[in-house]
Every structure is written in structure tokens, then in C-alpha cells.
């Protein structure tokens, strides 16, 4: 087709554009993905039975806020990476803050504990399933985030994929925290981090293939 004809055709079918495409797209993706993940958690894993009493403990909230913060930062990054030429600015560096806070808490906890208890703090009862479940719960959110990103305009596909993966991992870990009854910062800083890292790395690996447009 001749370029002039193409332009005429594009202009003819244009019409007005709805504002906030990025926010709406991600809202839909996160909403459905998060809903599906919560459903899987509630049906197959079950909400921890002591939720009421646990909600009185600060560690319960740390376990929600830590992955929640990573989720929020990753979402901000994804929204930027979905727009061509949008600088990431300081947002990428902010990612280390929740990590540093949790690792500092873990260090204080481990140093303050007697030698014999340290392994128990680090491994808890569920270290071997935690990263797997977080990855599992992040899967529907992962699909949603990639679906949203692909329709937008990412130009750095590895980073965009990684951001999508961390969006999924962060929210997945948040939802998993409603099931998981581990209450140590060392556990959180290790196995939750690994659980969130798996979808992030998967996202970075799949980005160039799946996000091409």
C-alpha cells in the first residue's frame, strides 16, 4: 500500500482516544489477576485460621506491606515502561528500600536470637513450599500484567517483562501472606524474596518474546 493511502486510512478511522489508557489497562489486569489469585488461595490453600488474632501482631502487617510495597513500585515502573521514552527516574532505585528494611529487621532478629533458634527462624515450617506457592498465586496476575503491557508500547522488553513479573510476584506474595503463618522477618526476607524473584526473572526472560509488538 502507498504511504499516502495508509495515512488517509489511519486518519479516517482515528476518532477520539480515551484518556488514561495505561491506568485502565492495568486496573483491569490487576483486578482480574488479583481476584483469580485470591480465589485460588482461598479455595486450595485456605486463609490462615488465626487471622483475627494474627491481625493484632505487627509482623502480620509487615508481611503484607513488604510485598505490597514491591508490588506498588513495580506497578509504577511497569506504567512507565509501557510508555515510550518515559524516564524511570528515581522509581527503580526506590525498589531497594523495602528490601533493606526487611533485611535489617531480619538481621536484628537473627542476631538477637539464641544460636539454636536461628535455623528455625530462617526456615520456619514451610520454606520449601513458600516460593512455589507465591509463584503459583502470581501466575494469573502475571498473565494479566503481560496482557496489559503487550497492548501498550514497551520499548525495553527485558525490563518491561521484569516489571510485569514483579507486579505479579509482589501481589501474589501479598495474597499468599493471608495463608502463610510464618512470623519471622528472616523467613520473609528470604523465601518471600525468592518467591517474588521467580516470576520477575521469568518476566525478564519472556519479555522479549511475548511483549514484541
Amino acid at each position, binding site marked *: 500500500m502507498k504511504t499516502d493511502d495508509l*495515512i488517509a486510512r489511519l486518519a479516517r478511522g482515528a476518532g477520539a482516544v480515551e484518556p488514561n489508557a495505561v491506568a485502565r489497562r492495568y486496573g483491569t489486569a490487576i483486578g482480574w489477576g488479583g481476584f483469580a489469585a485470591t480465589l485460588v488461595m482461598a479455595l486450595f490453600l485456605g486463609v490462615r485460621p488465626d487471622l483475627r488474632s494474627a491481625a493484632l501482631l505487627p509482623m502480620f502487617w509487615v508481611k503484607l506491606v513488604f510485598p505490597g510495597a514491591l508490588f506498588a513500585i513495580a506497578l509504577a515502573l511497569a506504567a512507565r515502561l509501557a510508555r515510550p521514552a518515559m524516564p524511570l527516574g528515581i522509581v527503580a532505585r526506590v525498589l531497594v528500600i523495602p528490601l533493606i528494611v526487611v533485611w535489617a529487621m531480619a538481621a536484628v532478629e537473627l542476631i538477637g536470637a539464641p544460636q539454636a533458634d536461628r535455623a528455625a527462624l530462617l526456615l520456619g515450617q514451610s520454606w520449601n513450599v513458600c516460593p512455589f506457592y507465591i509463584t503459583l498465586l502470581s501466575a494469573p496476575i502475571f498473565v494479566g500484567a503481560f496482557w496489559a503491557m503487550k497492548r501498550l508500547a514497551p520499548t525495553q522488553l527485558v525490563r518491561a517483562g521484569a516489571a510485569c513479573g514483579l507486579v505479579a510476584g509482589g501481589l501474589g506474595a501479598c495474597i499468599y501472606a493471608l495463608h502463610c503463618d510464618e512470623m519471622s522477618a528472616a523467613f520473609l526476607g528470604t523465601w518471600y524474596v525468592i518467591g517474588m524473584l521467580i516470576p520477575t526473572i521469568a518476566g525478564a526472560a519472556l519479555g522479549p518474546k511475548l511483549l514484541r509488538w
Partner: protein
Amino acid sequence: MTRTSSDDRNWTVEERLREHFVRGLAGDGTAYETFLRELCGHLRGYLRKRLMGMPDDIEDLVQETLIAVHSRRDTYDSGQPLTAWVHAIARYKVVDLLRVRGPRARVTEVFDEESDLFGSVDNEAALAKRDVARLLERLPERQRLPIVHTRLEGLSVAETARATGMSESAVKVGVHRGLKALASIIRGER
């Protein structure tokens, strides 16, 4: 700090294109078409510089980038410069093409950070049209009209005669003399 004249030119292009684009986003089809046409010229110039070894791909890539800009136009944030946004899309499409083509593709300065997208123009067809129109203005009516009708609009001699009220032989003579006159204007004899 003072801006150079080339900066000034790019700045006004940015402003003008942006205004048309933003009006297009709001549903103004005419403004949007103006934007696409001007952008097309800039893209062609920009890509021609970067894909010197691959002349056949330039027009394809111009079209593909136009479609990309069009289909993802809702990702433009009104707070960012339009140049940067379009440049990132064009660069993405160039890099994507090169990845498909593999290392045999030769390219110059694909990874430039400094965007001179709106500094390059290649609207050869449009410019040529304007030049021809300007030359034709210098011919008398009885030569200009036959040339416009028969050579540019593609009418037959008989149709031209009907449209202008001239006789068929007058049309033929007009074309013949007019083209000769144009040739001498171009050679600089008048």
C-alpha cells in the same frame, strides 16, 4: 544559554506537531491527518539516514512506524515531549527490524540518544509538487492549463479541449511550447 537556530527550528516543529497530534487525540481527524503527513516526512528522513544499507526497507519501516504511532497513540503522556515519544517508537521499530535481519544489516548510529527526528525531513513528493506548481505559475494560461490537465491530471487532449474551451490543436501546441518553456526556465535561460 542561547539556543541555536536548529534547536529553534526543531522546537517549532515539536510545538506544531504536538498541537495537531493532541487535537487528533481529541477526535479532530483533519488535524490528525496533518500530523501523520508531516510525521511521515520526518520519519522517512530519519530512517533513510539510519538504514543506508537497506533502502528497500525504508518505506516499509516508515509505514510500520506510522501504524505503531497510530495504534499506540493512547500511551502518549501529555507531559512528555512528543519528539522523544515518537523517537523511542521509531528506534524500537528499527532495532526490531535489525534483530529480525540479523548481523548482516548495516546501520549507522541506531543507538543515538540525541533525537534529531524532527530535524530531518523527506517529503520529496510533496516538495517536488510544490516546485512544479511554482514553475507552472510562470507560464501563460494557454500553455499552463494544457500541461496541468494532460500531464498532471491525466486527461486526454479531447477532454482538455472541452474543459478549457481551447481547440485540440491549441492544446497540443500549448503542451509542446509550455514544456519547452519549462525546460528553458529550469536550465536558467529565463
